[in-house]
C-alpha cells in the first residue's frame, strides 16, 4: 500500500546521474528511507581500442560516475545493473523495426514502461524494497474511493513528463515514487546546490540516449541493412524525386525531401510496403481522427463508453480536445474537435482529464 513518509521503507531509486534522480534520491534519504541507488547500463560502455566511448547523451560512464558520487556523498549504496540485453531487445530493436515500417518511434516510453518500471519493480522486490523511485516529473495519487492509483501531471508544467509514463500499470504505479514531481525544476537544482551535489547545474539530457540527433538513419541501416529506395510522390500522383529509404522521413518533415517546389511541401504519408513517401502542402497534414493500439488505461480498465479528454499526439504538442472511444483489443478511436497537424504513426497519444492521465496508446 502506498504511504506517506510516516514510516520508512527500503526504496530503490533509478539514478541516471542527472540532477532530477539525484535529488529524488536525496529527498527520500532525507525522509529516512533506506535508499538503494541503481543505475542501468543500457549499452556497451567499453568503447573501441582507443578507449573512445560510443555516443551517449545519458547513461554514459560519466553519468554512472555522477550517480555513484551522489550516492557516496549522501551515504547510501549504489549499484550499476546491466540492462544491455533487455534494452537492446525491448527498446533498440523496436526503434529500428518502427523506422523500417515507416513509423516514427518514441523509445523513451518503452524504456520507462518495460525497463525502468517493469524490471526495476522486479529487482526492487528481490532486494526487499517496497518501492521504485525515479527522477520523473509526474505525480502518483491514491484515490481512496476507487482504491486506485492515479497518474497526475507534475507541478512544474514545463517539465511535466507524464506523457512518457502513460503505459504504467496499476501494479507499477502502486510501487512508483516521483519525489521531484511536486517541485519546480529551479527548486530541484536549488536543493542539489544546497546539498553540494556536483550535478546541480548539469544540463538536462534532451536527445535519445543511444543515437545522436540526426544520426538515426545511419543507426537504423547499421542494424537493419540498407532499405529499399523509392519514389517521393506528390499526393496528386506526380513523382517528384526519389529517396534512399523510408526510415529517413517522418510525417510533417519539410527539410531534406530532395524535391523542389514553388510552395513548401511536407511529408504527409509514408508507405513502407511500396517504399513510397508522399508529400503535399501544409494543409494536407491535417487529420481529424486517429486510431491507437496497445492502449493502456491508467484506471486498469477502459471506460465503459466514449470519454471526452484532451489528447496529446507528441511530447511537445499542445493537447487538443477530443472524444476517445475504447475499442476491443486494447484499441481506441480518437476524434479531435478540430483537425490536428502531423499525426504521426509510432508516436504516443496520451489522454488527459485536466491534471490526470487517463491513458494512452500508440498511433497506428
Amino acid at each position: 500500500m502506498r504511504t506517506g513518509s510516516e514510516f520508512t521503507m527500503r526504496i530503490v531509486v533509478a539514478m541516471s546521474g542527472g540532477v532530477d534522480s539525484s535529488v529524488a534520491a536525496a529527498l527520500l534519504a532525507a525522509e529516512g528511507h533506506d535508499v538503494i541507488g541503481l543505475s542501468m547500463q543500457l549499452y556497451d560502455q567499453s568503447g573501441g581500442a582507443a578507449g573512445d566511448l560510443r555516443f551517449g547523451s545519458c547513461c554514459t560512464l560519466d553519468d554512472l560516475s555522477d550517480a555513484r558520487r551522489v550516492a557516496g556523498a549522501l551515504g547510501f549504496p549504489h549499484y550499476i545493473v546491466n540492462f544491455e540485453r533487455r534494452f537492446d531487445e525491448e527498446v533498440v530493436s523496436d526503434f529500428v523495426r518502427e523506422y523500417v515500417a515507416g513509423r516514427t518511434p518514441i523509445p523513451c516510453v518503452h524504456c520507462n514502461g518495460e525497463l525502468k518500471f517493469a524490471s526495476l519493480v522486479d529487482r526492487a522486490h528481490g532486494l526487499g524494497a517496497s518501492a521504485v523511485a525515479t527522477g520523473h516529473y509526474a505525480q502518483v495519487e491514491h484515490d481512496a474511493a476507487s482504491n486506485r492509483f492515479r497518474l497526475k501531471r507534475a507541478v512544474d508544467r514545463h517539465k511535466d513528463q507524464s506523457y512518457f509514463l502513460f503505459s504504467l500499470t496499476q501494479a507499477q504505479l502502486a510501487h512508483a515514487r516521483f519525489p521531484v514531481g511536486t517541485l519546480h525544476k529551479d527548486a530541484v537544482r536549488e536543493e542539489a546546490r544546497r546539498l553540494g551535489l556536483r550535478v546541480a547545474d548539469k544540463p538536462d539530457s534532451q536527445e535519445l540516449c543511444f543515437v545522436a540527433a540526426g544520426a538515426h538513419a545511419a543507426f537504423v541501416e547499421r542494424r537493419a541493412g540498407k532499405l529499399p529506395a523509392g519514389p517521393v510522390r506528390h499526393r496528386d500522383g506526380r513523382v517528384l524525386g526519389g529517396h534512399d529509404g523510408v526510415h529517413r522521413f517522418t510525417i510533417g518533415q519539410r527539410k531534406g525531401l530532395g524535391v523542389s517546389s514553388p510552395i513548401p511541401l511536407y511529408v504527409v504519408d509514408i508507405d513502407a510496403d511500396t517504399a513510397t513517401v508522399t508529400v503535399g502542402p501544409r494543409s494536407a497534414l491535417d487529420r481529424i481522427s486517429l486510431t491507437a493500439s496497445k492502449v493502456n488505461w491508467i484506471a486498469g480498465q477502459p471506460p465503459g463508453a466514449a470519454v471526452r479528454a484532451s489528447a496529446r499526439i507528441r511530447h511537445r504538442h499542445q493537447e487538443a480536445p477530443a472524444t476517445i472511444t475504447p475499442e476491443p483489443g486494447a484499441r481506441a478511436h480518437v476524434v479531435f474537435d478540430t483537425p490536428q497537424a502531423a499525426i504521426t504513426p509510432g508516436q504516443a497519444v496520451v489522454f488527459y482529464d485536466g491534471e490526470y492521465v487517463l491513458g494512452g496508446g500508440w498511433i497506428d
Partner: protein
Amino acid sequence: MPRAYFDHNATTPPDPTVVAAMVRALVDDFGNPSSVHHFGQCAKALLDEARSSVADLIGAEPSEIVFTSGGTEADNFALRGAAEALEAGGRRHLIATAIEHEAVLNTIKALQRRGWTATLLPVGASGVVEPAALSAAITDRTAIVSVMHANNEIGTIQPVAALAAIAHAHGALVHTDAVQSVAKIAVDVRALGVDLLSLSGHKFNGPKGAGALWIKRGTRLLPAMTGGKHERNRRGGTENVPGNVGLGVAARLARQKTGELARLAALRDRLERGVLDAVDGTAVNGAGSPRVPNTTNIGFEGVEAESLLIALDLEGFAVSTGSACSSGTLEPSHVLRAMGLPAHRTQNSIRISLGAGNTDAEVDALLAALPAVVGRLRTLVRR
C-alpha cells in the same frame, strides 16, 4: 551491520605488519634507492630485502625479480616484452587458454593487431586445459605459451608443468599468470618449469600497486619501461619502495602461514557443502578439479547473479561474480562460457573467495542468510 568479506580473489586486506613496514618505508626510509648516500642506501637495502622475500616465496633468485605495479603490468611486460624480443626471429604465434585474465587476453588482442596470431586453448567443463590441446595447437612458429596457474573465477589449477614441457619441446617461451595461485598453493618456478611468472601483492595481504614479474635468468625481454637503469634496465623509473616493501613483507608472511591454507580449504569445503545442502538448484562450477583452497564458484538456478550479489551486499556479505567490467556491471563470465556452461548458468553464478580474516561464524552466517535471499529472488515473476 556486521559485514563479512568473501571476495579475497579481488583483493585482500593488507596485513598490519605489511602496513607498518610500508609506513616506515614512507616516513623513515624515503631515500631514492639509486642515490649513493646514506638515505639511498637505506632505501636500497629495503628493496633488496623485499626482492629476496619475493624470490624466496617462489623458489627464485632475487636477481630474477622485477618489481611492477601489479599483475596486469607483469602480464603486459611478459607478453609484450617477449613478443618484441622474439618477433625478429620470425615467430609470431602465441598460445594461451580461453580462461585467462583480461590482462592476458587483451594484451594478446593488442599483439594480434600488430600481426601476431593467437590460439586460445579450450577448457572443458572441468575448467582445466588438457595438455593434448596444447600439443595439437603448437607449432615451431609458436613463440609464447601463456597459461594461468590458477583461475581467478573458479580457482581451477592448470597443469602448468606439463604444458611448459610441451612448449619447450617446440622452442616456445612459457609465461604463467600466477596472480591467483601465489600464496594460495605452493608455487616454485623451477618445478613449474616456466620462463616468466606474474604475481601481485594485494592478492595475498600486500598492498595494491605492487607486483612482480619473475624472469628466468637468460630470458630475452624488452624493457617494460624505458628510462633509467632501474631494475637491471628492465623497468625504468624510481622504484615504488613502500609498495615493494609491503609486497616483500606479505611474501615473507605467506611463507610462514602455510597452516592457514588447510584451514581455508576446510572452511571452503564446509561452505560448499552447506550451500548445496541448504539451497536447492545449486552446483559448484569446476568441482572435482584441482582448485586453490580458498575459492568456490556456485551457480544458483533461476537467480540472476547480479541481483544475488546486490542482495547479499545489502545483508552484509561481500561476494563477486568473478570479474567486473569498466563501469562495474556484470557480464556473462568468459570463463564459465569457455567451460561450456549454458547461457543461464554463466549468469547465475557467484564467486566466494575466502581469506585470512574469515571465520567459521561468518560462513555460518552466510549459510543462514542464503536460503531466504535466494528464495526472495526466485519468487520474481519472470517475464
